Each structure stands twice: as structure tokens, then as C-alpha cells.
């Protein structure tokens, strides 16, 4: 318990002197104070006396350099003794900060509601997104997606034979009950080995994937992964999360809340990637395509990445990356897909030889996006 500095006087004499600020004017009224079991007796010295019952008295901020007594019936009233009240008398006197039972109930209810909302978002945020994502108008998503697809840079590959082959591969990977929204697949003439799903049913394949792939099954694996993102409405959900949940957490939590939010976004997109991998394997099996292609592709990308000479900074970044990455580590994926490979049934190549050749040449003809 914090003891006010005035307590350290050798021996306080009671009654003590002090002043009253009555809260009506700034004039300080000097008084002699007698602390009594039932309250305080105040003697103004000019014959004016007052008794304040202990029930309305409250102890002021304990950390304050100068202790003061408040009263609940007159919020602006202050009694400032020259010496601290006797410790025996102070014992059990409520602090001014302590709430009335009614206020306490009110605040507790507010806090409970706020906590319930936050906790609910934390626990059921994904469910909420599951419900809200289908409600976003398709037109709006298409517009957002159209713009995003143009942003990565590079031209769209539109060779007729390649496009036809890509169409056949897409058709083969389409679930029997179709997609939740019309899927549009496009190839961008960019060397990056990557693919992405954007709002509005867009799936973008970078030319780098076609260059790196050794066969059509590998491309089919990557496409199936992105198609699962579309099927699970991941692009829409991430758009909503980015705009809604992030705004909420950051507004209430300030900077610290922002970091917490980042953690949520990172963990949820890791889950999304894992779900897309699982979905991709299931779809590949349904389409009678070997998941070995997906496994081989991830495996090769990973080992190439490992083989590259790295400096110390890059190694540290890799370490951080495995914790903070929005994608699961390639090795985690490879393990998962290879396990599925063990259970595969009868399979045929994802594309015939002619279609595979055509798909690899899709960037022979380009359109400015």
C-alpha cells in the first residue's frame, strides 16, 4: 500500500489543520479537522462547524503527493489536511475511483458486451466471413478483381491454341457442381514462379509456372490450388477482413492492436493456404490427375530455393519467414501432398502432349492488358 509522504512526520497531532475547497468558489477555507469514527468534524474557527458523515467520504488518489478527501454528494468538494488522516481512520474508507454498485453493473455489462464482440470476432471471425462473403455483389468483386489482375504488370498471353488447352484443363478441374462464381483463368507474361486468385473469380497464372513445370500435371496442381481458393471465396474474404476487421481492431487497439491484427491476418491466410492445398488434392483425385505433379513442383521450387547461395541476412529472413509467412512452408506442403500421392487411384495426364505444347506456347501471342 502506498503511504502518503505526510505520514512520515514523526507524530501527527490530532486534530489537524487543513483547508476545504467547497467546489463553489476557489476560495480555500481553513479548518481544524477532527477524525471521528462516524465522519469528520470541521471547525472553521469563526464559530462555523460542519460534520461530514463517513458514508459520503472517499479517499482521493493514493498516488497523489498531497492526500485529499472527496465526498460523493458534492463531487467538487475537497478536504485537504496538512497531515494525513490517522491510518486507523483511513482503513476501510473506499477510494474515490471505486464505483457505485449501479455504475459497476453498467460498466461490467458494457465490458462484457465489448469482450463478447471481440471474442466472437476472434473465435467466429471465419464463420462471419463465411456468411458475409457470399453476400458481396458479384459485380463489385469483378470490378475489384479486374483491376487487381492488371496490376502485377506484364501482358496477358492469348495464343489461341494455348487458350483452348487452358480451357480444357480448367474444364477438367471444374467440380461437377461448378464453382461458386464464374472462373476466369489468364496467363500473364511474367517470369515470376507464382499464381494467384483474385476477387471476381480471377485465377492468374504467371508464365514462370509454365516455364518451370516439367509436365501438365504440375500446372494442374497449381491451378487446382488456386481454384480451391476461389471455391472457398478466399479472395473475397481477405478483402472483407482487410477492410472490416482490420479497421475495427486498429481503431480500438491503436498500434498494439495493429500488430495483433497482423498476427490474425497471417495465421488466417496460413490456414487458407493449407485448406487450398487440401482442396487441390481432393479435386485432382476427382479429376483423375496425379497429385504427384503438385508434389514434384513444390519440391523442386523448394530445393532450387535452398540451393541458391545465401548471405546471412537472407538466412535470417528465411527463419523469420517460416513463422510469419502467409503461405505454409513449401516443405510442409510437399509432405502433405506426397501423403496424398500414396492414396491416389487410376490417373491420366492432365493434358495430352499437343495441348501441353500449346499451353507452354500461350505467350507467343500477347495482348496489352
Amino acid at each position, binding site marked *: 500500500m502506498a503511504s502518503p509522504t505526510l505520514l512520515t512526520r514523526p507524530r501527527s497531532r490530532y486534530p489537524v489543520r487543513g483547508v476545504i*475547497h*467547497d*467546489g*463553489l*468558489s*476557489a*476560495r*480555500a477555507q481553513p479548518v481544524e479537522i477532527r477524525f471521528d469514527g462516524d465522519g469528520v468534524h470541521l471547525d472553521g474557527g469563526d464559530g462555523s462547524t460542519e460534520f461530514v458523515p463517513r458514508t459520503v467520504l472517499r479517499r482521493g*488518489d493514493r*498516488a*497523489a*503527493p*498531497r492526500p485529499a478527501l472527496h465526498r460523493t454528494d458534492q463531487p*467538487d*468538494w*475537497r478536504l485537504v489536511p496538512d497531515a494525513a488522516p490517522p491510518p486507523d481512520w483511513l482503513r476501510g474508507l473506499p477510494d474515490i*475511483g471505486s464505483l457505485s454498485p449501479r455504475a459497476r453493473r453498467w*460498466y461490467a455489462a*458494457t465490458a462484457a458486451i*465489448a469482450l463478447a464482440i471481440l471474442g466472437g470476432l476472434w473465435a467466429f471471425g471465419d464463420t462471419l466471413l463465411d456468411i458475409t462473403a457470399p453476400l458481396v455483389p458479384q459485380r*463489385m468483386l469483378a*470490378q*475489384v*478483381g*479486374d*483491376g*487487381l489482375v*492488371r*496490376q*502485377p*504488370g*506484364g501482358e496477358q498471353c492469348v495464343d489461341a491454341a494455348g487458350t483452348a488447352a487452358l480451357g480444357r484443363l480448367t474444364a477438367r478441374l471444374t467440380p461437377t457442381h461448378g464453382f461458386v462464381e464464374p472462373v476466369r483463368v489468364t496467363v500473364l507474361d*511474367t*517470369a*515470376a514462379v507464382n499464381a494467384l486468385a483474385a476477387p471476381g473469380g480471377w485465377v492468374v497464372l504467371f508464365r514462370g509456372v509454365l516455364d518451370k513445370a516439367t509436365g501438365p500435371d504440375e500446372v494442374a496442381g497449381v491451378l487446382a490450388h488456386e481454384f480451391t481458393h476461389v471455391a472457398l471465396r478466399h479472395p473475397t474474404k481477405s478483402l472483407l477482413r482487410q*477492410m*472490416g476487421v482490420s*479497421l*475495427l*481492431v486498429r*481503431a*480500438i*487497439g*491503436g*498500434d*498494439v*492492436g495493429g500488430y*495483433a491484427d497482423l498476427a490474425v491476418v497471417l495465421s488466417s491466410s496460413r490456414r487458407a493456404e493449407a485448406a487450398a492445398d487440401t482442396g487441390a488434392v481432393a479435386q485432382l483425385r476427382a479429376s483423375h490427375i496425379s497429385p504427384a505433379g503438385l508434389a514434384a513442383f513444390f519440391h523442386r521450387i523448394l530445393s532450387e530455393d535452398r540451393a541458391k547461395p545465401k548471405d546471412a541476412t537472407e538466412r535470417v529472413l528465411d527463419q523469420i519467414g517460416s513463422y510469419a509467412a502467409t503461405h505454409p512452408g513449401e516443405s510442409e506442403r510437399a509432405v502433405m501432398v506426397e501423403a496424398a500421392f500414396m492414396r491416389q487411384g487410376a490417373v491420366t495426364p492432365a493434358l495430352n502432349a499437343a495441348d501441353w505444347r500449346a499451353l507452354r506456347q500461350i505467350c507467343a501471342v500477347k495482348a496489352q*492488358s
Partner: protein
Amino acid sequence: MDAMTTAVAEPAEPVGFSGRLGSYFGMAIGNFLLTIVTLGIYRFWAKTKVRRHLWERTTFQGEPLEYRGRGIEKFIGALIVFAVLIVPLFLFGLVSAALTASGNKEWAPLFALPLDIGLLWLFGVGMYRSQRYMFSRTAWRGIRGGMVNGGWLYDWTFLKYTLLQVVTLGFSGPYSATRLWNLRMNDAMFGSAEVHADAQWRPVYKDFLIAWLGALVIYGTAFFLVFTQFSDLIAVMKPGAPPPADPKALAAAVIKVYGVLIGAAFVASFLMIRYHAMLLRELFGKTRLDTLGFRFDATGLDLFKFQLANIGLLIVTFGLVTMVMPFRIWRFYTAHLATVGHLDADSLQQTTLAGPSQGDGIADAFDAAAF
């Protein structure tokens, strides 16, 4: 009340501050940890504790100030503002994102501009209401402060002067700063006493002009450097440009560009220090509470030393000093602030202004209040 004559000749009495860094630091550490544990929600209570700590150790004419705000008020205030703001912000964001994304770039500013102006407007309201809340929760000798308006009218002036600043490349700085201070302070009361402020822009203009011209030259040089030395980088940033050939070199260039711009801002802000000290002296010096005047005596050199020490400490303590920064700023201000003349405390009555029932939510939503 008009009592201009009494305020000037009388001796100054420094504003007292008995705060100790050690005890402040102890509180700040607790605040910091609790804020982290509660994912930032504790910051409303933390800020309240900081204010109470500083106020209680500050004496004004020999009597300490008292801070009566509560963390819960600030929290609820922020919740209300948040509830009101979230829907329009979300919709605006969605519409302008859709416009930009769909390639209708020429339409996007039509939506982005009102949003930015709206936010700027809200920021002004937030500043005013933050001061209103703070004054209403500040007491001295049992008497509370207050503001006569809600800030909605003040804000159009705030917006006007801020846009004027943008249009004039900051040239209207002293004019805007003094006018806005006067507006805010003339709305303030302490108990039955009115606050009067009559800060003028002319006395500070000479100092400002030198710094402003210097800053223009510095920024001009910095931007010239960026545009001539890093033209490759700018080409990459254009929409539809091919991806960079060497991402590492690009990252290095980006860091250099930021270095140049931050360096320029740094030098320019140090050029402005003399003016800022002058401005503070003018603002406080031309403000009075009824018959009681104020005096702020920090020189440009004082402010320079203070800022230099802050930066030095920031580096030496790896940023840990930010935890005690409110204390350092408060101590600096109180050390240089004095009251001049006399306030008739016996005739000072309690305020009749009703304070806001909840906290300064707008400023909190932006996390903008200094203390």
C-alpha cells in the same frame, strides 16, 4: 471582464512541477505491459493515469492541479466514435477501391477527396473536443475548466486554414497557428473566468520566413535529387511498368530515397525550431485567464537542446525513452511556463459549463492526443 491593465507589471511566478522520472517510469512500465496484454485496450486507462500523475505534481500559483478523467470515459467515447465512423469509412473504402481497381482512376479522386477532407475535418473536431474534455476534467482549488462550444463550428475554420496551408506550401503557417489557437482558447473558461487569447502572426513572421525559405530550398533540393538520381525507380513505380530486373537494387534505391526525404524533413524541422520557440512564446504570452497572464520563456536554443537530447536518448535507449516522453515534454513545458499577475481566487466561482459525459473519442480513434 476587462482587466488588461493589471496583468503586465506584476512579477512572474513559475508553474511548479515536482514529478520524478523514477516514479513516472514505474507507472509507464506498468501501462506498457498492461497495454500489450490487453491488445491495446488498456491505453485509455494508461493515458488517464499519465495525465493524473502529471497534473497532480503540477502546481499553479502554489496549488496542485487535479485530473478527474476516467479511463472508462475515454474508452466509451472511442467506442461511440468508432461505431459512428466504421460504416461510412468502410463504404467509402469499398467504393474507391472498386473504382481504382476497375480502371476508372479518373473517378477515384472524386470519392477519395471528400473522404480525405472529411477525415481532416474530423481531425479538427477531434483536437477541439480533446481539449474540451481535458479542460472539463482539470480542476484547481476545486474549480473546473470548460469550453463553451462543441467544436463543430471551430472546425470549418480549422479546415479552411489547413487547406490554406496546403495551397501556400505552408507559408500561412504562423497565421493559421495563431488564429486557431486564439479561436480554441477564446472558447475556454476556467470556472467563472474567461480565457482570452490574442496571439499575433506578425511578430513571429520574420523568424518563420527565414526557416520557411530554408525549408523550401532543402525540400526542393531533396526532390530534385530524388527525381534525377532515382529516375529508374520512379519508372518502375508507374502502373503497368515491367517488374524490376533486380529487386535487391530496387530495395536499396527505395531506402536511399527515404533516407534523402527523411533527412530533408529532419534538417527542415531543425531550421523551424527558432520559429517554434518564438511561436510558443507568442501563444502563451498573449493568453490570459481573466487578470492572470502567462509567460513562456524557452528560447530556440532551449528547444533545440531539448529535441537533440530526445533524439540522442532515442538512439541510446533503443527507443525505450518514448515511454517517458510525455513526462519529458511536460517537464519541459512546465519548466518554462510562468504565470504573471494575480488571479482573485476568492471571486473565482465554479463553472456553469456542462462537461462532456464521455471522453474525447475522435482524437482517441485517431490516437492523436499528445498526453
